[in-house]
């Protein structure tokens, strides 16, 4: 499905496809049209004197792209990388950026009814990266405001 189709669907407010990934014990979602690809973890070259959450640069087919650690970004405890760790490559204002997550779980189609604005209770400054919350039958998925989360 191409991006236009997805945007169209989004504009219709019927449903939207979301890439769901795990970070610590929580599920997060990114709109699928922001995701370029998902790659396995590979050697990351640290860049000195950058923000703590910038893990470094990786080689993506001859291009060097920066990778950020969402755990550090969200002030979650750091953990060892595992077999299921992945880098989600997303398109941002400053080009492609890789985002390290614990695991990519699924791609969900969420309909507008299941999406709610962030409850006031959790909507403090810590949660400026949250765009909305989606409820599925089994769990809550935090939908990220990617531009905020990636802003340097």
């Amino acid at each position: 499905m191409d991006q236009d189709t997805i945007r169209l669907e989004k504009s219709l407010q019927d449903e939207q496809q979301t890439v769901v990934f795990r970070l610590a014990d929580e599920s997060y979602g990114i709109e699928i049209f922001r995701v370029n690809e998902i790659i396995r973890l590979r050697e990351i070259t640290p860049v000195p004197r950058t923000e703590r959450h910038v893990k470094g640069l990786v080689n993506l087919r001859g291009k060097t792209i920066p990778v950020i650690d969402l755990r550090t970004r969200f002030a979650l405890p750091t953990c060892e990388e595992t077999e299921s760790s992945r880098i989600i490559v997303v398109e941002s204002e400053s080009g492609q950026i890789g985002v390290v997550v614990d695991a990519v779980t699924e791609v969900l189609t969420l309909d507008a009814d299941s999406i709610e604005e962030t409850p006031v209770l959790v909507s403090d400054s810590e949660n400026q990266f949250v765009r909305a919350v989606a409820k599925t039958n089994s769990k809550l998925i935090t939908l990220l405001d990617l531009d905020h989360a990636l802003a340097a």
Partner: protein
Amino acid sequence: MSAELDMSQYIDLFLQEGEEQIEILEQELLKLESDPTDERMQTIFRAAHTLKGSSRAMGFSNFAELTHEMENVLDQLRNHTIEVDRNIANSLLGCIDKLSDMMDSIRSGEGDKAECADLVEALKAILSGKVSPAASSQVGGAPATAAGIPFPTQVPPDLHDALTEAKSQGAVYHVQFRLTEDCVMKFVRAFMAVSVAQEDGEILACHPNQEMLEEEEFDRDFELVFTNTGDMAEIRSKFEAIGEVDAFVFGQWGELTAEPGRHLEIVEGGAPAPVASGTPAADPAPAAQTGAAASATPRKADTGQTVRVDVARLDNLMNLVGELVIDRTRIAQIGTDLALRYNDNQIEDLGETVSHIGRITSDLQDQIMKARMLPIETVFNRFPRVVRDLAQKLGKEIQLNLVGGETELDRSVIEVIGDPLLHILRNSIDHGVEMPDERIAAGKPAIGTVTVSAKHQENHIVIEIIDDGKGINLGRVKQKAVDAGLVTADAAAKMSDKEALQFIFHSGLSTAAEVSEVSGRGVGMDIVRSNIQKLGGLIDLDTAQGKGTRFSLRLPLTLAIIRGLLVDVAKTVFVLPLGSVVETLLIKKDDIQRINQREVVVIRGVTTPLVRMGEVFGRNVEQTPCEDFYVVIVGLAEKRMGLIVDKLIGEQEVVIKSLSRFCGDVAGVSGATILGDGNVALIADINGIVMGDRG
């Protein structure tokens, strides 16, 4: 004369640069209204400043005047003397539209003819605090093409026959021009007219004769008779496009009436053969169609030998070769790994093939690099005009020497060094060289000398700008630095001359007592340095009080690929540009001494400060006590510094990739590259490391 003709070659360059700058101006100005930051203001100011400089260099005085007025307003905005509001923004945007219009008319060969008095008024009103009406932009009218100029010409009888003969074979046209009274480059206008006439035809006769046209030995009038296979209306519109023309008359030969007292002169080889041969009226003077004619119609033999290629394509090729270089290194490494693991004939074959590919890639790279090379002349040739105009304006006498114009370097570098060099040159002439009487009083010849030279040195090009002026007054530089709050008076007093000179490159610091049109806004030298550094180059200067100043620039030949020394620092590979590496040493722990709590090592009698790379990059993981240290001595101008690294890996060619915008500017890192093993390595910015180590 020939310098002025040469300018036409650089119009393309000017247009290209100018459009970029205008675009920056427009975009940033639009953003400025909603988000006025100092940084943005600085960008806008620089763009206007660059436009002013390059348009003046090209001799577009209207353009330069408008940008100068804009710059005045921008300067006030930058200093917060006035604040940006809708009115000011409208006026400035109006100016930008006008600049774009001028670019268009320059492109079409009309020069920067445009009426911008109202815009200038609006800008001046802003400066004087009056409310400015939103300025409108209007292109000045095209030159009038009023008929009936009283200067048609009498034709000698033999020529008349020749022309009648020619007319029987095809259309013969007659055009008469009268230039405006203030036309600056009459020759150029004549040259343009000649080019139009010759485009699809041949000039049969002209008045005055061709030599006089070239030498500009005519008042305001000239005329041409020519054959042409082109469409008459089209030719007319091309003539109309020639700027600074008061009027012109254009028609079929014989339609225009003759006036006694003038006669047309036959262009040799132009008139049809039967009459031209043995005709006493044939003027022997213009033996060769030199100058204007020759450059207007490129010799046919040349076409087919060269191909014009879009620069973007060359860039693309360069990138692809870059990828190839990476993969070659990668395959070579895989081959080596395989050879260690298996003992097989086929792997030997692989090794041979890899090394063959290696040679081909190197050749390919060389060839593409060469295809992108241009002689630095293309930059140098802009200078004589600038120097002449500037010297005249300032009342100084200056002899400009250009040396080594044939030195070739990559197009990407050529494109960006023009402006920095021009800035330095202007500075040398404005601040360096003294007035003739001062020079005589100081026992120097009245004529000042400025030399710009270029030469290859290893894998670099070294450009020097030397003047024999009064030198830089260090006391004054220090005083300015103190006034600007850059340094305390105490520290300034202790500073070495070399250190104090560095303030020259500081933004907002100008030692010129008055702001002149030429320089002295303190905007030039900081741009110069940042541009040079962006290129991975070095800039240095020496000055001797009363004797002169020398700027020297050291630039890489290309920006795409560098040779680097790979070193290991805290288990990360860094690339040190080989151009900055002086030597590598293995020193003993006992060799390290301390001065002022700084680690130093004495190498052949020279005390060299040491820097632990691990500490510079804040990754001081484990400091295993060891006896031996690898030290890479790097040099920046005269400054030497030893970088302590964990391991030396080797020398390699690396393709420079920029750090992502996301990472921004990282001090001490100039870029990234991909190594043979597919991993990313950072390219160290020696300049940043050395400069960052002042403390």
